[in-house]
Structures are given as structure tokens and as C-alpha cells.
């Protein structure tokens, strides 16, 4: 297999690697370099300014606000989404009426639930955000008119227009659109846990809640952990940008200024609205640090002995 091996390797790797280097790796390196300059992005001239951008960032109230919101996303969203998904998946797989010969059974129609729950996952986050922007509309939106319909006409929140509610509204949309994915993911993992385990535990007098914490969760731990990291990266990155930008910044959103700002959106605004490319990359570097720290923390505290079965 040696004949022409290296020529083949180079020939096959050249194009993908060149594209990847040019459009992904090189911009990443550049952006770290630019964070030490005063480049505006508009003109080709710039100078090295050392840590000026970083000290400016530390004194920037909006940056701290965006950091705080992004951290909230990274902590709350995986917790709620993974928690809800585990709950639903457990119901789907174990909540069923007991059938002859099986200790645990899935509910009837679990295939149907899985199909429906997965719907939001195939839709563009932009479409989902637009849809909910209208649903949240205080005057004619779907949510407030439901409230009116059930006799809660006096409870008509401003939703996205209320600085205290806007961030929660945005998070609810992200949960709505991602739970289904994790339900299907965990459900597949739970289906591969041998039924004898449950049978043995139930015979020994354990109830279903105990079986969840003593059997399901430990055996599913690897999947839960990677799901947790995946959701956190999503909550820190492009997904949160799209939802916040579309729902609360657009001319129809009317979100109160900066009450929902997240780090990726602040990077975008500084670079492409305010012409401060160098400062934008500085915030981007901070986002990179937060993302890597998040993944490291989850892996560190999530480490457990791997269980084979």
C-alpha cells in the first residue's frame, strides 16, 4: 500500500485543509491578534495598542451585562433543557402501563410523541424566533389572547418589552426549540438499558423514582454530560445570537436596550454596527475563554467512573 501514498495523502487533504485554514483557522488567529490593535475594520490602517482593548472591556458596563446574561444562559439553559428532556424521556420509556412479562414499558404512542417533540429541531432558529416574537406581542399575540380567553384579562404582560421578563422569554424559546432533540437522544440511550435492571430493582422494593436516580441516570451519564456541553455551547454561541437579535433588537422587537444583550450579539454590534472591529474581537476572545472554561468545568465535575453494561 506504499506506492504513491504520500502523493495521494497530499492530494486528498490539500483542498479541504486549505479551505479550512483560510476560512476558519486563519480568521481565528487573526482575531486574537486584532484584539491587541485599534483596528476599526473600515480602514486598513491600525496600530498595536497592547492591552488597551482589554482594560476598556473591563470597564465597559454593557460588556459585563452581556457576560452576565451569557453566563445565565450557560447555567440555566442546560439545566432546564436537559432536566426536562430526561423527565420526558423517562416518562416515554418507563411510564407506560405494565404489560405482561415486562417490568417497565414505554407509554403507548411514544413514537408519536418523539416525532412531535422533534419538530422544532428541524426548523431554523430564525423562523422560531420570528414566530415567538409574534406570539409574545402584548396586544394581538397568541399568548396574551390565551390569557384573556381563560379569564386572565388583567394579566397582560409586556413580555419582550418588559426589561425584567425579556430575558426569560428568550430563554423559554431556546428551551422550546431544543428539548425535543435531547428527548430523542436520551430516549435512545434509555432504550438500550437492559430491562432486567429495572425488574430486579422493582422486585427489591425500589420505586420508579429511585430506579431513575440509581439505574437510568448513572448508565446514561456519558450522554447526559455530552448533551450538557452541547447545550451550553449552543446557548453561548450562534443560537443565542439569533434569538436575541431577532426577538428583541429588530424594529419589531422593541426590546429594552441591553436588557437581553448576550456576548455574541455584542461582538456583532461592535464590529458591524459601530465600526470597532478590534474591540469586537476582544469581546470575542472573552467569549472563547468563557466557552472553553464552561466545557472544562462540566468535564471536571461531571467525571465519573464509566459503567459498562
Amino acid at each position, binding site marked *: 500500500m506504499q506506492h*504513491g501514498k504520500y502523493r*495521494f*495523502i497530499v*492530494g*486528498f*487533504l490539500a*483542498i*479541504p*485543509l486549505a*479551505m*479550512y485554514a*483560510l*476560512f*476558519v*483557522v*486563519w480568521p*481565528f488567529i*487573526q*482575531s486574537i491578534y486584532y484584539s491587541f490593535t485599534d483596528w476599526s*475594520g473600515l480602514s486598513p490602517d491600525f496600530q498595536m495598542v497592547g492591552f488597551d482593548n482589554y482594560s476598556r472591556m473591563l470597564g465597559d458596563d454593557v460588556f459585563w451585562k452581556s457576560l452576565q446574561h451569557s453566563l445565565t444562559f450557560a447555567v440555566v439553559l442546560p439545566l432546564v433543557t436537559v432536566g426536562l428532556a430526561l423527565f420526558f424521556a423517562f416518562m*416515554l420509556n418507563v411510564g*407506560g402501563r*405494565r404489560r405482561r412479562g415486562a417490568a417497565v414499558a414505554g407509554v403507548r404512542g411514544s413514537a408519536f*410523541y*418523539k416525532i*412531535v*417533540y*422533534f*419538530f422544532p429541531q428541524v*426548523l*431554523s*432558529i*430564525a*423562523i422560531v424566533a*420570528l*414566530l415567538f416574537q*409574534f406570539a409574545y406581542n402584548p*396586544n394581538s399575540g*397568541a399568548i396574551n*389572547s*390565551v390569557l384573556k380567553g381563560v379569564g386572565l384579562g388583567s394579566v397582560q404582560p409586556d413580555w419582550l418589552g418588559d426589561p425584567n421578563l425579556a430575558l426569560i422569554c428568550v430563554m423559554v424559546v431556546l428551551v*422550546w426549540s431544543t428539548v425535543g*432533540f435531547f428527548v*430523542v*437522544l436520551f430516549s435512545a440511550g434509555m432504550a438500550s438499558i437492559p430491562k432486567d435492571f429495572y425488574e430486579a430493582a422493582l422486585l427489591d*422494593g425500589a*420505586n*420508579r*423514582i429511585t430506579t431513575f436516580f440509581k439505574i437510568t441516570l448513572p448508565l446514561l451519564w456519558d*450522554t447526559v454530560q455530552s448533551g450538557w456541553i452541547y447545550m451550553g455551547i449552543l446557548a453561548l*454561541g*450562534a443560537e443565542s*445570537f*439569533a434569538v436575541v437579535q431577532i426577538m428583541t433588537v429588530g424594529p*419589531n422587537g422593541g426590546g429594552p436596550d441591553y436588557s437581553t444583550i448576550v456576548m455574541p450579539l455584542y*461582538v*456583532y454590534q461592535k464590529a458591524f454596527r459601530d465600526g470597532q*472591529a478590534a474591540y469586537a474581537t476582544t469581546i470575542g476572545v472573552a*467569549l*472563547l475563554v468563557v466557552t472553553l472554561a464552561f466545557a472544562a468545568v462540566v468535564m471536571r465535575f461531571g467525571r465519573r467512573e464509566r459503567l459498562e453494561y
Partner: protein
Amino acid sequence: MKAIDTPPAGSALPGPPEPGDVMVTKAAPSAPRKESKAEGVTLNVFSHGILILWAIMVIMPLLWAVMTSFKTDRAIFTSPWALPDKLHFENWSRAWTEAHMSDYFLNTVLVVGGSLVGTLLFGSMAAYVLARFDFPGNRFIYFLFIGGMSFPIILALVPLFYVLQNMALLNTLHGLILVYIAYSLPFTVFFLTAFFRTLPTSVAEAAFMDGASHTRTFFQVMLPMAKPGLISVGIFNFLGQWNQYLLPTVLNTEQEKKVLSQGLVQLAVSQGYKGDWSGLFAGLVMAMLPVLAAYIIFQRQVVAGLTAGAVK
């Protein structure tokens, strides 16, 4: 949903399980059946209730959008949940032609078509070499690729904007295709490298012995064998690229080059000024339905494709 310690038939009172309980259930084989039945029924009703509730919460917003797209603007504002008085199909035709939905669709099909083919071709080439050949730097290149999965894209976007500008690729569809391919490579390479490793080596060796070149072995023997993996990762990339919002928002801002997701957001802005909400909802549903329909038809493959990466 706790175990019941005394088994009166039909009672579902919760009580803590006691050690003695186990003895009783083991000693009396008829008892546990009743217990678990009561527990099972309560649990079953409870789980169905919760599951149905979430199913409704998922479906209602989508149904509401479909319903709204057939209503007049007046009806949308006065009674958001009422059924449309008649099916106003003119909303749909207005969105399709006047609001440029047809252009957005065409652009999206072109961009996603081009980048999907490119992603699968280049991704499988790189993955095959990384999975099957030993050479200095193999590990480094592999980790360089998969490292891209956890980095925030927005950080690279600021310089990338100017890289594309200098190469005259900004606001062009082919520029967008190249960028889509580059940003799809990390996951594609990660997934396909693992997949190529699982394929047997003997077939490729036999082909090589028979005088086929490495290139020919790859295209005529290995690629057909890798079809299931290509389908999974293809579906994953198709949905990701079709739904992409961040990249086109930054790199492709010219009106007539816009793709669906950003076109819709643009539509929300412009129709908002005109007050044409029904047209906007028609556009939204128009963008939603093809993906939902495709998902329902290829349900099994889509789920396998989207969850494959995370299970590994």
C-alpha cells in the same frame, strides 16, 4: 409515585418503602401484581398528561402560524385565535412574488445544494485519509479539524468578513458556499473519520492488489461502502446549512442574494412597515412546511443523522 406498602386494591396512597416490605412481596406472589398495577395506572395517567401537555405546547404555535397565514390583517389583530373566515390564498401568492420568497428559496437551494455536495466530497476525502493512513501530522490535522466544533464562530466572523472582502467573495453565493463548506468540515470530518475506521480494511486492500489506484479505490470501493454514514452526516449538514442564520447575516447582506432565514427576518422588517402581517406569516409557513414535510417523510433517517454525533 412511591411503592405502596400495604396492598388494598385500587388504593394509590404513597408510602415509603420499608425493608419488611420486600419480604412481604417476595413471600406473597399475588401481592406485588396489585401494587404495581395501581402504581402503574397512576404513573401512566400522570405521564400521559404531562407528555400530551408538551406535545400541545409544541404543536400549537405551529398551527397558529398556519392558521394566521390564511387570515386577513384585520382578523390577525382583532382575534388571534379565531379560525380564518375563508382561506386567503392571496397572502401566499403575495409573499411568494412581491415579498421575494421565491428568490430566497432559489438562493437557498443553490447555496445548500452546492455546499452540501462540497461538504460531503471534501469531508469524506479528508476523513478517509485521516482514518486510514499513518503519516506525520495526522493527529495534529485531525485535532485541528475537530477543535473547530467547540469554538464560537462569531469570533472568527469579524476577520472573515474582511478576508472575503479582499478575495471579492463577500455578498456572493459562491463565497457563501465556500464558507458553509469550511464551517461544516469539523463535524463532518469527526463523524466520517469514526465511520471509515469501522469499515473493514480487507476490501480496500483487495482492490489495491488488483491494481486500482488509491484514488480509484476511494471513489469506487470506499465511498459506496460509506453510504450510511454519508446519509447521516448529509442530513445533519443539510438541516444545518438550510437553517443557517448567523453566517449569511454577516457575510451576505445584499438584498437579491439573501437566503431563506435572513430573508424572512428582512421580510419581518419590511412587511412590518407596510403592515402586511398576513403576507409575512404566509412566508414563515412557506419556509417551515418543506422542512417539516421532509422530516415527517424521512423521520427515521433525520433522527439518526441528528443524534448520531452526540451518541458517539
